[in-house]
């Protein structure tokens, strides 16, 4: 016996310190070359994705993990940043066919990407497992289908209790999770309003978390209704104030999907040249999110906001 106590381990909790910074700073600090990047869909973290594309020469490659994504992941794919995508769905939704994704998978333009397919629930349960420090979660989705056949990381075992087949999915713990949410305080307590898909578990599963928000609020405002704290501060590394930060997608209770813009973007994405011209203008041609918003037009963004507020406002029935 040496009378040396058991040494202290390092915990994972982020401290309750001031975390507000710019998108440029947050992306520079946390997203490294080869990063395993998780991203939300509700709402889409456009402001951060644009910034990642601006820093693409430094970041070089990413492995993406999503559940479903509509449009925004393809901005990274078309920019040549993505080596691999773990996903349930990557397409255009109402905007239709995702030609950027098709070009990459079918023709290797701008480069080949590897795909790992799941169902939405399978993909979501991977973050659920990661959030709870477990290495897998069971699901009944995916059984009997070719999703299981072509994905060696889904293991079908005999359920130890029932003897019936059950599909296990491997935990996903992204190096960095990026997401757009409604509001946060300065230490990183985050509120999501409306539907938010898997944003809560993505934040819990990720080693580092960058959140863009529509509004910054005080800690007292968070404490007014602690049931609405979707992501407590100990998960969060950086809070970025980015109003309209999900455009052209929606942010519940703030503004809705800019369909006219999304359809037009998808039209341009039909060719790689069109895609690159679009990126040159809207992403590389703007220095930050505020410049992007000016290019789109704050009058336009304000119209989207007014229309959303005509129909719904958090805490009211309109």
């Amino acid at each position, binding site marked *: 016996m040496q009378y040396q106590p058991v040494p202290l381990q390092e915990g994972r909790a982020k401290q309750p310190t001031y975390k507000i910074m710019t998108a440029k700073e947050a992306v520079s600090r946390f997203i490294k070359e080869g990063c395993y990047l998780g991203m939300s869909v509700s709402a889409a973290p456009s402001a951060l994705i644009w910034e990642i594309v601006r820093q693409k020469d430094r970041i070089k490659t990413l492995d993406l993990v999503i559940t479903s994504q509509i449009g925004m992941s393809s901005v990274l794919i078309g920019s040549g940043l993505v080596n691999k995508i773990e996903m349930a769905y990557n397409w255009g939704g109402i905007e239709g066919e995702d030609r950027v994704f098709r070009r990459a998978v079918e023709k290797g333009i701008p480069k080949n990407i590897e795909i790992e397919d799941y169902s939405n629930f399978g993909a979501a349960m991977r973050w659920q497992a990661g959030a709870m420090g477990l290495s897998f979660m069971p699901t009944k989705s995916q059984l009997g289908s070719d999703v299981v056949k072509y994905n060696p990381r889904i293991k079908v075992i005999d359920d130890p209790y029932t003897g019936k087949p059950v599909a296990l999915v491997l935990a996903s713990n992204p190096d960095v999770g990026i997401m757009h949410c409604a509001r946060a305080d300065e230490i990183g307590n985050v509120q999501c309003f409306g539907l938010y898909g898997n944003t809560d578990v993505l934040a819990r599963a990720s080693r580092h978390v960058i959140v863009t928000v529509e509004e910054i609020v005080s800690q007292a405002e968070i404490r007014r209704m602690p049931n609405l704290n979707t992501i407590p501060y100990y998960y969060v590394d950086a809070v970025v104030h980015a109003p309209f930060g999900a455009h052209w997608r929606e942010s519940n209770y703030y503004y809705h999907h800019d369909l006219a813009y999304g359809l037009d973007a998808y039209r341009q994405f039909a060719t790689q040249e069109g895609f690159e011209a679009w990126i040159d203008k809207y992403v590389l041609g703007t220095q930050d999110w505020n410049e992007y918003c000016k290019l789109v037009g704050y009058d336009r963004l304000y119209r989207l906001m007014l229309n959303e507020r005509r*129909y719904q406002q958090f805490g009211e029935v309109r």
Partner: protein
Amino acid sequence: MSEYAKDYSMPELMAATVAREFRDGELAFIGVGMPLIAAMVAKFTHAPNFNIMVEFGAVGPSPRRLPLCVDCAVDNERAYYTGTLREVVGAQQAGFVDVGCISGAEIDKYGNVNSTCIGDYYKPQVRLAGSGGANDIASSATRTIIMMRQDGRNFVEKVHYITSPGYLDGSPGAREKAGLPGGGPQAVVTTMGVYRFDKDTCEMYLEKIHPGIKIDDVKASVKWNLAVSPNLVETEPPTEEQVMIMRTLDPYQVYLGTGRQTLTGDFEAFMKMMEDSYWPMSELMKKKGIL
């Protein structure tokens, strides 16, 4: 009871046909697009206590605008619940979803659907969207309604990739043996007719044929030897009221026509669609006693 519409389109016929598959008091897992229109038609006509779940975390929305996607702010409008995907898909896995709608690029005679790729998985000729929630619905919903375009090439002997399981190889108890909790496909509604699955053989057969469609054309567009119900009937047309509801909800025919082309890049037209919707939809709801 409303009269049958004299003037209606194929998408309107399909949406009305799907609407008739929904029953009052049920809970349905609905993506956007045509199934959403069908769900609203059901709720506004024969099924006022019918509610929808939307994949990324909404239950029972009562919107007065056209929802634009499964994670759309509109899905949130006056919903009973909003939150996570795991709530709605977890409830489905536990048996709380009575009916779900899916679509796909290919289907086989046992109702297995492909929405992942055409050609080899690793070197696809065409890469598609992937499962999204379609596999989850097909696995766990108490029953599944499949909506498909029938283009002469996509009703195949064997799909390139089973994204969403139907009755698998059609052998007795195949779904149960695979561990799937849901009941499987109940109907396939296409641009040509309505199909069901035989309770013994699990094979798809033609139950109804759309007005103006010829049986030989249907058979020619199916790659296996299609069985036809001896009681084959013509599909019931939409009622005037059903069509009126569809056109109120989707006046630009975003889901039921060429609205997307119209709106591409036209912000003013899009805003007009979203803004003008409030009053006619509110009036319609009031008339129907929908909260």
